[in-house]
């Protein structure tokens, strides 16, 4: 198992390098100069500008610039935000926990919806339940997160007035009421993200279980006299989950995309809304760092998927 993990890690390293090359290329190709504002400022003489350029190494060959940029990205030296004059890493560390909690909770919700519904629908294919579940899943997948978010706000915040539609990280108070307030304000963002994922996963789980349930070993398990429950949970679901894990791993970039949109709708102070506000404020260091962090998170999720594979199907780990 450890050897397998090390091998997967060794595969992750080139992807990180590849992503960093892509990011740096985009940045290097982009027009404009980080010192454009200085150039436009008549109070800054050109020699000072030239000195600054030399000091920050802007005139070095591109390979040197890339290596230096990648090196400082890796050690977490991401510069400071143009807009708020705070170090980018402290800014991101402030925002990251909220994003991770919202994404994590929504993935758990998606799993809690998709697994039972998908498996139950697949054990009774073309029943009323299956048809209703499939239709809802299809529709849920076609509903973009930004629209479901607005719909939920319209129903639960404006018409029913049950839930707040602005997320606040600095809620006053303590104890149970404080926790309850936090849960209440997280319900809608988590639901938007989780149900969107859940709709996609339900379809994956259903089709994957349908593929597995006709295999001979399942018939064997049944003919051994095992209870249907045991057959489904221990024999079918475990094998059916392997392709589902692949599809979920492929979907991870989309999950982070959805998180950006959700954070923007509900004003959740996570790194997604940090990214948007940084873009609107032309805050390049923050934009680069957030994109880099999100890329690393995607790769970590792929690594997690690999670990899950190894656990679901030990043959993969020992191959």
């Amino acid at each position, binding site marked *: 198992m450890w050897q397998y993990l090390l091998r997967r890690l060794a595969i992750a390293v*080139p*992807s990180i390098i*590849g*992503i960093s090359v*892509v*990011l740096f290329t*985009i*940045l290097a190709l*982009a*027009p*404009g100069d980080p010192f454009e504002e200085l150039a436009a400022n008549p109070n800054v003489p050109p020699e000072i500008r030239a000195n600054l350029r030399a000091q920050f190494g802007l005139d070095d060959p591109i390979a040197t610039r890339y290596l230096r940029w990648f090196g400082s990205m890796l050690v977490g030296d991401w510069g400071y935000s143009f807009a708020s004059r705070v170090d980018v890493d402290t800014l991101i560390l402030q925002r990251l926990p909220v994003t991770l909690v919202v994404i994590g909770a929504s993935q758990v919700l998606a799993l809690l919806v998709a697994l039972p519904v998908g498996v139950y629908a697949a054990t009774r294919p073309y029943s009323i339940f299956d048809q209703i579940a499939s239709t809802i899943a*299809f*529709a849920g*997948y*076609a*509903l*973009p997160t*930004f*629209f479901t978010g*607005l*719909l939920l*706000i*319209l129903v639960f915040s*404006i018409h029913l007035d049950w839930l707040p539609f602005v997320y606040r990280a600095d809620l006053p108070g303590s104890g149970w009421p404080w926790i309850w307030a936090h849960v209440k304000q997280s319900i809608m963002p988590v639901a938007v993200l989780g149900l969107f994922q859940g709709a996609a996963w339900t379809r994956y789980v259903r089709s994957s279980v349908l593929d597995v349930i006709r295999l001979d070993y399942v018939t064997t398990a049944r003919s051994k006299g095992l209870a249907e429950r045991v057959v489904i949970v221990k024999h079918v679901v475990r094998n059916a989950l392997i392709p589902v894990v692949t599809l979920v791993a*492929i979907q*991870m*970039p*989309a999950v*982070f*995309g959805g998180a*950006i*949109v959700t954070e*923007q*709708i509900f004003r959740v102070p996570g790194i997604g809304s940090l*990214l*948007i506000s940084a*873009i*609107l404020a*032309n805050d390049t260091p923050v*934009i*680069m760092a*957030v*994109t880099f962090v*999100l*890329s690393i*998170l*995607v*790769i970590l999720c*792929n690594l997690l998927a690999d670990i899950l594979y190894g656990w679901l199907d030990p043959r993969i780990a020992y191959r």
Partner: protein
Amino acid sequence: MAGSIPASPTVSAAAPRRASASPWAEAWRRFKRHRLALAGTALLALMALAVLLGPWLWTVPINEIDFSAKLQGPSLKHPLGTDDLGQDLLARMLYGGRISLAVGLASMLIAILVGVVIGAVAGISRGSVDAALMWLTDLFLSLPQLPLLLLIIYLFRDVLKNWVGPEAGIFILIVAVIGAFRWMPAARLVRAQFLSLREKEFVEAARALGASPSRQVVRHILPNALGPVIVAATIDVAAAIIFESTLSFLGLGFPPDIPSWGRLLYDAKDYLDVAPHWALIPGSAIFFTVLSISYMGDGLRDALDPRKVL
């Protein structure tokens, strides 16, 4: 694969009408059985027709400001209501539909073109070329697409705006960027198809007759690999429409004077309490378009898979 050879004499004797049907007619016959796919196609055709012909029939300008009629619900004068500047939403919806559908189709064409070329090259060549291209595909699949899209648009939009004007500039940018980040599924599909097709007897026969690799690909392999590509293409249109709406919804797509559906939603989101119709109309338009395309793709998947017995 025996089922996919319809020209055997026994079959044609038993069902003469079907034996004469071309593969496309056969596919259409299977597609028609999928009622939801048919309904989706019809709805989509209706919408395409509406956004193409609509602006000629409904000649209210999209930017006519009338503060006395702001934030009104649907009425006879404004069938879909008005926004905060009193602009007619029907006219803006029709105009936005053109943009959304055009972005969807154009991005799909780029994504499919790039995907087919990369998948075909990877599928026909063995060894290091294949490995390198697939590594590239996997790398692009694990890129966080939305942040990168935002980054690219942030960095390049001003240049293109100065170069070809605000509307065309942002259109080219969005289409190119969505296309550049959506080719991977098509490439994987085409490669997988090529890997199995290139070992088939008919390709071997072509090879034995001395067909060059490019002729094998263009004449023999590619036409047989098209089915899944068409399905992927429909899904890509839907994905591109959602992508464009997402960008506009985040305020980073088309500028405010060009009302795409996502942009309308973005403008509407601060008026949810007083004018919910303003958000509901473009939102439902996106929803129904994407749903129709998904059902159409589902129907095409069934119709274009010759092994499928329906």
